[in-house]
């Protein structure tokens, strides 16, 4: 520890602490432009120059990187220091007339104008090099650098081309003190497209209410995963909880299990192809997911319902059945939408004074307490229109209405075509099977229906089982359902597993295929047909064999066996022929 005096205040700090940090501990502000505590001090703006007195000798040092090693006296605001700072700011004003931070500093110091010729430009770069440092030392992408030297010095990618190594991480923009580097031209607008459920930062919670509720590193966004650099999180985590050597490689582990419960869930229907609703094209047209995200207290809007311009909407239309109950997309009802849409309406009423329009085909409030909630929403004064939203257009296309958007629909109760001017549209998109459901299904030898959901063994009698023993279904992967139903099905699936395990032995269906070894000639026609890979070929004996435990008795191989070596028990050729002939006799 060393004891130093800064502007007359004494402080004891650890050795090698920089003057700037020590001063900040004392609440003394030393202006610094090229300094960011996450980056090794570069010490080039020289704005943080302070007077350092050791014994009788006084010298000028930069506060950002001068390590305190002995008892010294520091003056951060002496006349000499001030003079230097003022000159510095004057010079930077001429260099970067457009940089607001410089103008602010100048105003703070009472500098009205610079003595140097001011070019008419809005140049903002002060060549502090933070972006270059960030890109090379932190990100390690090496996409930015200095070129030329002296007063011609400029910052940019090599040869002014789009750098191949740039990973679009935005670190340069983040560190830029003057706003010279920008990622987008959003200018503080709220981009609804960013209101997704999924993580949009490198370190996030996997999803809201995740259990365990700890952040994880998302390799798609993590700079370290891309370049090997950064690791700022490691530096700032005081608990030293982040360990990239362990995170760096995914490991594959094999488990032997007796049962699998498929609970792979769903994905949101993407309304982009439904051009009529203008999703992705018109501003303030959101999916239900985005709207839900916006309502979350942890959202970028802090839970406020706002339009892209940051203002509160005056009216919101909530469109039901987007992609559900639709011949062109999904014929099924997604079941959960009606209720959460009513909840949306409620939220809007609570948070804003906006008018809410619900456009529905049929209001399906079938569950316990649901209908009561519907009544409550009606009492709250929500406009409920029976008629599917047909089209969303910008208001100016039709007439200058109250809102920025017009929702066209037919109100089937009054039998009239209506155009409703609104500020915001929420599209309640269908739940749909995950894109990889069929592939996953093949892995587990279970099938998917035409609507993409996994098929249960029997719709009424075995709703959580599948045709494959030991594979069970729970939740939306089997079909759209709400939380209570999912929980119930999950519990049922768990019970099924327990039942299976408790029995200690598996009960097999009596129907399965058998290959008569004496007849099979090993032509291998059947080998590729089995969806359950139950047929194996014995290369020694040159015959195929069916594993009865894997066989589900579909009989495809029986029909295909050209030499009649395969018998489908309970559905033998003899039995079927006899049935046919018996019917016709």
């Amino acid at each position, binding site marked *: 520890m060393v004891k130093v005096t800064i502007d007359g205040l004494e402080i004891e700090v650890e050795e090698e602490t920089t003057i700037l940090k020590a001063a900040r501990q004392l609440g003394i502000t030393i202006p610094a432009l090229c300094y960011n505590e996450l980056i090794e001090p570069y010490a080039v703006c020289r704005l943080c120059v302070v007077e350092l007195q050791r014994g009788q000798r006084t010298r000028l040092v930069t506060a950002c990187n001068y390590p305190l090693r002995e008892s010294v006296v520091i003056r951060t605001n002496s006349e000499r220091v001030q003079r*230097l700072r003022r000159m510095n700011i004057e010079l930077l004003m001429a260099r970067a007339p457009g940089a607001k931070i410089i103008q602010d500093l100048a105003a703070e110091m009472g500098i009205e104008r610079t003595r140097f010729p001011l070019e008419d430009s809005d140049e903002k770069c002060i060549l502090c090099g933070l972006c270059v440092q960030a890109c090379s030392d932190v990100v390690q992408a090496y996409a930015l650098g200095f070129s030329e030297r002296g007063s011609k010095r400029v910052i940019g990618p090599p040869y002014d081309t789009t750098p191949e190594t740039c990973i679009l991480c935005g670190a340069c923009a983040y560190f830029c003190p003057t706003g010279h580097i920008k990622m987008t031209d959003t200018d503080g607008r709220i981009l609804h497209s960013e209101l997704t459920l999924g993580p949009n930062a490198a370190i996030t919670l996997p999803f809201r209410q995740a259990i365990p509720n700890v952040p994880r590193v998302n390799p798609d966004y993590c700079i370290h995963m891309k370049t090997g650099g950064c690791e700022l999180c490691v530096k700032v985590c005081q608990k030293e909880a982040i360990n990239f050597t362990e995170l760096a490689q995914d490991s594959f582990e094999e488990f032997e299990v007796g049962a699998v419960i498929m609970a792979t869930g769903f994905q949101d229907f993407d309304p982009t192809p439904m051009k009529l609703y203008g999703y992705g094209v018109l501003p303030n047209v959101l999916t239900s997911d985005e709207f839900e995200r916006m309502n979350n207290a942890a959202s970028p809007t802090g839970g406020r319902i706002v339009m892209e311009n940051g203002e509160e909407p005056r009216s919101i239309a909530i469109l039901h059945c987007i992609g559900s109950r639709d011949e062109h997309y999904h014929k099924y009802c997604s079941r959960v939408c009606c209720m959460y849409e009513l909840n949306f309406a409620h939220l809007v009423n609570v948070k804003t004074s906006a008018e809410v329009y619900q456009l529905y085909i049929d209001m399906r409030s079938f569950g316990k307490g649901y209908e009561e909630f519907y009544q409550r929403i009606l009492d709250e004064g929500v406009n409920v229109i029976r008629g599917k939203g047909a089209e969303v257009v910008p208001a100016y296309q039709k007439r200058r209405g109250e809102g920025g958007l017009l929702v066209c629909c037919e109100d089937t109760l009054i039998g009239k075509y209506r155009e409703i001017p609104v500020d915001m549209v929420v599209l309640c998109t269908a739940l749909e099977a995950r894109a990889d459901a069929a592939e996953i299904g093949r892995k587990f030898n279970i099938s998917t229906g035409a609507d993409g959901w996994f098929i249960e063994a029997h719709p009424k009698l075995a709703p959580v089982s599948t045709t494959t023993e030991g594979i069970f279904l729970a939740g939306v992967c089997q079909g759209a359902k709400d939380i209570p139903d999912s929980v119930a099905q999950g519990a049922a699936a768990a019970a099924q597993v327990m039942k299976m395990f408790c029995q200690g032995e598996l009960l097999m269906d009596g129907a399965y295929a058998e290959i008569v070894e004496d007849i099979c000639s090993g032509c291998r026609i059947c080998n590729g047909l089995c969806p359950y890979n139950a047929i194996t070929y014995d290369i020694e004996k040159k015959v195929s064999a069916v594993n009865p435990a894997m066989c589900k008795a579909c009989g495809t191989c029986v029909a295909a066996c050209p030499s009649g070596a395969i018998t489908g028990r309970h559905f033998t050729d003899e039995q079927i022929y006899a049935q046919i002939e018996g019917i016709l006799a």
Partner: protein
Amino acid sequence: MKPYRINLMVCAGTGCVANHSFEIKKALEDEVKKRGLENEVQVVATGCNGFCAEGPLMVVQPEGIFYHQVTIKDIPHLVEEHFLKGRPVQKLMYVPPDAKAPIPKMSDISFFNRQMLIALRNRGLIDPEKIDEAIGRGAYSALAKVLTAMTPPEVVSLIKASGLRGRGGGGFPTGIKWETCRKAHGEPKYIICNADEGDPGAFMDRSIIEGDPHSVLEGMLIGAYAIGSHHGYIYIRQEYPLARERLTIAVQQAREYGLLGDNIFGTGFQFDIKVARGAGAFVCGESTALMASIEGRVGEPRAKYIHTVEHGLWNLPTCLNNVETWATVPEIILKGAEWFTSIGTGDVSKNPWGGSKGTKVFSLTGKVKNTGLVEVPMGITLREIIYDIGGGIPKGKQFKSVQTGGPSGGFLPASLLDLQVDYEQLTEAGSMMGSGGMVVMDEDNCMVDMAKYFLAFTQDESCGKCTPCREGTMRMLETLERITQGKGREEDIQLLEDLSQFVMDASLCALGGSAPNPVLTSLRYFREEYITHIRDKKCPAHVCRELNVYTIDPGLCVTKGHGCGVCRRQCPENAITGEKNVAHVVSQELCKKCGVCYDVCKFDAVKVA
């Protein structure tokens, strides 16, 4: 080695090489052979003698007869007369500017005899490409002494006691640097020789390497032993091809002789040197920028609160010294600290910064008769250097100022001619020792213009990393240009002073820290010139053309030139009117002050005011 009756030491320094000294050497060898003297006369190409203005030079040893400005045509005559018949050729001998009779012997020429050679001890005496000749002159004996009879701390304390200070410009006590580096934690430690001599007109380091590379290698070896390093770098400019070649040869030969590599002198000491080439950026002479350059990064300096002796090259302890410093070390070892402290000023026994000891090599240029490289003891006065060694100002002009220390050095006026040359006094006067540049200016030099000239150089060479140096020097230059163009404002002097102070105080490295010196000293000693420029819009030396007023003396024009019309025809602006036998007139409205009329008039009829 075979003894010869006569050794012809042909100067093969860069200046003389540019004047065909290699061709002369070849012609001499041919001629010697033709005359059948090859067993008696040996022709040797040596390093620079320093008297570059008079090249190509040749010294006939052992008599010490000095020939200058030798041409190939002179050779048959020279060989026949001198080497065959024993009659030195008078017409090739040097005649001092103010004397009539030639001076035959080198040792009698004032340019040489007022010098004191330590770093340049072997100049003109050996073939730098032959290690044997260097060893013959005592090279590596200091190393032998160190390795066999001294411990590293003894070496360090000897150097400390000698008061040797860095010759690269900073003047940091070498012994202290070695001691700190020796004690620094981290392995391996590096030794670097800074041969990135970037000052315009300076060629001290170049001459040492070209003339006696082994002195540098030996110095580095001694330093390595003292510090405990096994790896050395010599960072040399790509623009010094001859020096680089001779250095490479020297390193190669030293390796062959077991003077570099493992187990040197059988003592187990191990050291080797790599030659690194610089790309010619002035700022790479700055130690941290130089190290960045060796590491393969952009040559830019960094803040030095963490010293390079502790965290230098590749963040490891590094001892960097200048060529001249390294070359001086072996002599101190051999002759002792006492001998070294007997030369120079001040007292270093208590305070290492207390005095300047030994000699310093200067490259003497500008408005002085004998330009060239001189090594003089510390404490010599500027007058002695300029008038005794340099022979004074040519054409009888008036001395105006001398700038020491390279482009960042300050201008010293005539009143300070008796200033003793040492670190402290030069700094006190607003200039610096620097690496040893010395530019003499006479009455024809405009000090504002000179300040602008040197600032333009440092501004151009600024790496641009820190704000003061990048923005400040640019704005200073901008202001100086304004003044020399007659657009100066009263407040510009204050602005220049403010800017200079800012750049000096706040810059990251010494380049910026010293760049304002020319401006500050010219403002200090020649302030009235600025005021004349600004208030009167006049340049007293008529150097700043935009401030000049060209007129034609009608009398001279008619009487002498008969209205020749050359000026009229040459004037690009057609600002001159007149006819034959009629006095010409310059239209001040049209005149763009290019000065062509002044340059072309054979009759001095064009006048500048």
